[in-house]
């Protein structure tokens, strides 16, 4: 009964321990596993110590080592190594202090001695393979159910780490998420510090020039502005970490709610303009890549460059002038729920993105087109259409998707100029409005929200790849 159970546990134990050994090579994971698994690891180490004393091979090895040293072999080896080193230094004109020379010689001598001991051991028929006693002991202990359960309870965080490490996709995601947390932390501290060292004082700006010193002091106390830098920074980080974005200085409104109100508007606009940009950009890019150096290629690339150089607020103004003021076809101000009012902002936001996508599609497709596997595909007689779409386009999509992901994140973060032209109450113009005071909690919270959105969009795209692209998949297998 017990033996079958031990056998059943042996396999996972081996997997766990081998993963643990791999994990030890990775700096942060090593430190974390040492902290989280200290109780289990200490017990294993103790058991190994107790066991190694009774190991006959180890005992024989130590015996031989002692014998060789007593015979004066070590001293002879050391002298030889020293002489060798001196000759070498002389030849290369290298200077070395005596102390250094001796240390170096000793190291060489010890290695040589070990070789000798090993040779002797092999003659005697003793197994000289170096096995980590620790690893074996760990496996043996884990195969026993009571210890397994015990260590699982005592150091479960370590086992979670091991579990993460076992699955490459999960590990990749967790790594990226951990990095994201640090970046967001950095963003909070950075933006807060910039606003903290600002010479302009929100208290005076809000209360006005005529405010009495008591009023100013009171304001500062209410918002914690009288505290030192570190304590204020810590408070800000703590607040945002607990998803409490705080209240703005002006109007005392809940910042979290204010941002949440702007979210659906921005999201809707982002999706429409992205769809537009993807459609136009991919179409233009593909055609110019297929017909490289044609009139269409030249014209469209010229137009793309122009589109990249147009300031989007100017494009917005010109569109308003032509389609709202002169003809009255479209409303010039964005209203929630009115699809007609969304056309112009979507086109304005989409133009730059479409241009970027078209350029990227063209260059990426041209790059893939000159690769060997496309030549192979053509050589085996595939039709032009199937080569273009199945082989070239699908392989060229990766940088395009990256770019589109970044652009999408970019619009989700709001674009203050376009929002101003069309009077959209988005996140971008919200930050601009708040920055004059400066309304520190509002600005910090919105900038953090925007950076988080963009980073998450990028992360999502990167994770999507790992499922789509076989090349990344194999690379991750060895992650």
């Amino acid at each position, binding site marked *: 009964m017990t033996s079958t159970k031990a056998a059943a546990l042996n396999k996972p134990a081996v997997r766990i321990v081998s993963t643990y050994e791999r994990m030890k090579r990775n700096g942060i994971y090593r430190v974390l596993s040492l902290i989280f698994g200290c109780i289990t690891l200490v017990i294993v180490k103790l058991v190994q110590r107790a066991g190694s004393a009774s190991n006959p091979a180890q005992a024989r090895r130590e015996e031989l080592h002692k014998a060789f040293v007593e015979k004066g072999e070590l001293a002879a080896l050391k002298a030889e190594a020293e002489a060798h080193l001196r000759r070498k230094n002389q030849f290369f004109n290298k200077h070395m202090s005596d102390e250094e020379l001796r240390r170096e010689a000793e190291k060489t001598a010890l290695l040589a001695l070990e070789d000798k001991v090993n040779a002797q051991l092999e003659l005697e028929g003793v197994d000289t393979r170096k096995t980590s006693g620790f690893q074996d002991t760990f496996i043996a202990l884990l195969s026993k159910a009571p210890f397994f359960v015990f260590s699982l309870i005592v150091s479960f965080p370590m086992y979670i780490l091991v579990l993460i490490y076992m699955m490459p996709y999960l590990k990749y995601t967790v790594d990226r998420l951990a990095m994201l947390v640090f970046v967001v932390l950095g*963003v909070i501290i950075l933006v807060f510090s910039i606003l903290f060292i600002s010479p302009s004082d929100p208290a005076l700006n809000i209360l006005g020039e005529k405010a009495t010193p008591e009023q100013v002091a009171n304001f500062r106390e209410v918002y914690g502005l009288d505290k030192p830098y570190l304590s204020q920074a810590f408070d800000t980080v703590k607040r945002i970490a607990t998803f409490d974005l705080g209240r703005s200085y002006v109007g005392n409104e809940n910042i979290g709610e204010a941002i949440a109100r702007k979210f659906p508007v921005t999201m809707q606009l982002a999706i429409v303009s992205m769809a537009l940009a993807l459609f136009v950009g991919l179409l233009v890019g593909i055609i110019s890549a297929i017909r490289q150096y044609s009139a269409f290629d030249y014209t469209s690339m010229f137009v793309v460059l122009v589109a990249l150089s147009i300031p989007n607020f100017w494009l917005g103004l010109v569109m308003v002038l032509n389609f709202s003021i002169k003809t009255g076809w479209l409303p010039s101000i964005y209203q929630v729920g009115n699809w007609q009012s969304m056309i112009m902002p979507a086109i304005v936001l989409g133009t730059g993105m479409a241009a970027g996508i078209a350029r990227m599609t063209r260059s990426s497709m041209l790059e893939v087109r000159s690769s060997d596997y496309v030549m192979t595909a053509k050589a085996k007689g595939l039709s032009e259409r199937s080569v273009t779409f199945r082989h070239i386009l699908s392989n060229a999509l990766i940088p395009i998707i990256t770019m589109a992901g970044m652009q999408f994140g970019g619009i989700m973060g709001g674009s203050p100029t376009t929002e*101003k032209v069309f009077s959209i109450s988005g996140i971008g113009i919200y930050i601009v409005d708040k*920055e004059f005071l400066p309304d520190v909690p509002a600005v910090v919270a919105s900038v953090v929200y925007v950076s988080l959105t963009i980073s998450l969009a990028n992360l999502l795209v990167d994770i999507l790849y790992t499922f789509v692209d076989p090349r990344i998949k194999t690379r991750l297998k060895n992650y």
Partner: protein
Amino acid sequence: MKTSEYQKRMNKVKLSGFVEYKNLTFSMGATIMVGFIFLIFGYDFIAKTVSLGMIAVGGLYLLTALYMYLVLRRARREILTTGDIGETTRRMGWPMTFFIFLTNFFGTIGGLSLVGRKKCIEFQLCIFMLVNTMMVMLVSALNIFKPQIPRNFWLGMGLLALVEVFYIVVTVMVVKYTDEKNIDPRLKVLLIPLVITTLTGNFFALILAVTMFKRLYQKNKEISIEWIEIMRRLFRNYMAVIGLLVVIFLLSISICSYLTFDYAVSVENNYEALFQSPSLAYPFGTDNFGRCVFSRIVFGARISLVVGMTAIAIPLVLGGLLGALAGYYAKVVDNVIMRVLDVFYAIPSILLAIAIIAAFGASTATLVMAISVYNIPVFARLVRATVLSVSHSEYIEAARACGATNPIIIFKHIIPNSLAPVIVRATLEIGIAVLSTSSLSYLGIGIPSHIPEWGNILRAGSSYLEGYPYMAIFPGLAIILIVLAFNFFGDGLRDALDPKMK
């Protein structure tokens, strides 16, 4: 007669040997394009009205294009039959050189290269140098129609005319005394005056001086000069050179405007001339304070260029240094620097700029700082990647194997080889910095609003979009022009500096 595929290709090879022919083709193409743009915008599709001025300009452009087409056809026939462009055809280039007075500077470029009969890079530079100063003079000359001519106007115009005459002399000498292979040592006298005239902002003169200097003081005639090779490759790309011409033109006009333009017209209120439509006295009209929009745009070029260039130069040095450190020292230093910069990179550029401006108040210095800060990670990443790839390449290993010391490897191999992508990126980033500057000014948090800057002019114009649209349209066109110029020039520079293109 049907020409075979082979014949066609042979013709192409023959024609490609003639820079004049290529210049002329591109000039004609550009002229036709501009002509059509004028024609299209001359007709208001919504109001169904025709603007006579625009149609006239467009028609004029198309007429000049027709003339160019006829000359082009003649030249083509002569090249294909006799192998050279005939004397009469070359003389037909003379009228073309005066097209600049009809605002068509493309024609002048094509005409001059036809008349000059030289293919060397020096002559190409001369053409653009001449055209640039001529354009500055013509644009400045518009001030004659102002009710009050600027105080130093005639002094400035006189100086410019002197410089232009000197350039003509230089061009004639270049045509007479140089060709592809040889250069007359007597041309040395031109070098210093050429460098001095660069003070007018005409950097073509500087490039020409450097090129001539390199050839005059060349020791071994067999070795090709890298600088000249790069210039040659750059000048093969017509759009890139036009981009360079626009950038240098804006630089020149922002320098020359100290003399030939009146700053007061662009900042002081003039209640007698509120909201005037475009006319000869006020080419782009006047704004809500009676200020001349044209002068404001000319003075805005100065600010845009200065802000754009400093806001790229600072991160180029700082970010480059950080990136080089990270790339060179790897491991811990690399990790620390890059993770800190990741934080800066995570915040969208415009929001980081807004946060910095929020902290230190809206002023030009803050704006430069804000744009610089968010460009630091851009350059750091680029330099790091380049240094990493260069320092792992075979030729560095070879240099090390030959016994080169670290300083020699860094200064002779790593830096020169990492420079090209950085220069190209910097050129493209200047355009983006100009865009950001005007965006921030449009939001009211960039350059203080009384200073004539393109974003500010646009912001003022956007309030009067209904009645006086020209106030918002022209500064926008100026922004597009400068950004487009930097984009074209940057793209051309990338091709010219790419060692694979050799």
